[in-house]
């Protein structure tokens, strides 16, 4: 599925993501990194779990609202190969825990704080993801 450049929605949605991360820092004093929140929701001490569950529950709630607001103009298309989905999911799960963050934790929150680790991590996963897509689509083809 080819998608089109949607600058206004992109800037608006991005500002909302930044607002959410900024508010979370100012109110709860924490990084709004989804992989970290998710990992901790399973493994943190009992008293440190409730806010993680409510944060995660908010994501699909907000997505439903955002999809409704935009009339689902941006669409949805995902790979159908189960092996690819499982491999991708496992790599994202393990990689974000080993690398201490994902697009939100490193890419938005960490870089906003000027963290050197986050800048290096973001540049790394961006380049590797781009290279992966290049190999999958243009060298192997079909993905």
């Amino acid at each position, binding site marked *: 599925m*080819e*998608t089109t450049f949607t*600058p206004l*929605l992109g*800037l*608006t*949605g*991005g*500002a*909302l*993501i930044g607002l959410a*991360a*900024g*508010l979370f*820092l*100012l*109110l709860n*004093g924490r990084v709004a990194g989804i992989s970290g929140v998710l990992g*901790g929701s*399973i493994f*943190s001490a009992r008293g440190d779990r409730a*806010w993680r569950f409510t*944060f*995660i529950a*908010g*994501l*699909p709630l*907000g*997505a439903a609202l*955002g999809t409704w607001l935009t009339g689902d103009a*941006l669409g949805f298309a*995902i*790979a159908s190969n189960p092996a*690819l*989905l499982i*491999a*991708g*999911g496992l790599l*994202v*799960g*393990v*990689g974000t*825990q*080993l*690398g*201490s963050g994902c*697009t939100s934790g490193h*890419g*938005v929150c960490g870089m*906003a704080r000027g963290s*050197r*680790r986050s800048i290096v*991590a973001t540049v790394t*996963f961006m380049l*590797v993801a*781009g*290279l992966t*897509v290049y190999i*999958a689509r*243009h060298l192997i083809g079909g993905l």
Partner: protein
Amino acid sequence: MKNIYALICGTTFGVGLAVSGMTNPAKVLGFLDVAGHWDATLALVMGSALLVSAVAARFARQRGSTLLGESFALPTRRDLDPQLITGASLFGIGWGLVGLCPGPALAGLVRGNVELLIFVGAMITGVIGYRLAMRILDQGPRDAGGVTGSMAS
């Protein structure tokens, strides 16, 4: 109250992901595919998110405490260890294969899409598997270490 704040922030985050189109894996892959029909949207999403959260981070640093007067619980590590690079690389491969990172994957659950459910199931398995392995190796989860009340980074 903090659980309510987390719900509000998570919901706002989810609205932002959907409005920006980042909940559509095809759109993310369209950005990562610079040699194909390039969709630059993700760069603007990340840029504006970064700008807004950087203003908040600057304000937070100047204040020295949260709006509730509490100390921050932020990562303080500065070292670039092999785990950071390896982890980011593994994540990059997974992200490039499907076009989903953790936020959009969890936010997209609202669609009830089977393929997305398979991805999220595998992702959570990866998270649990890694953390259990680290617990057995007695190293502890990496992002839980080095957290103090300082804004220094």
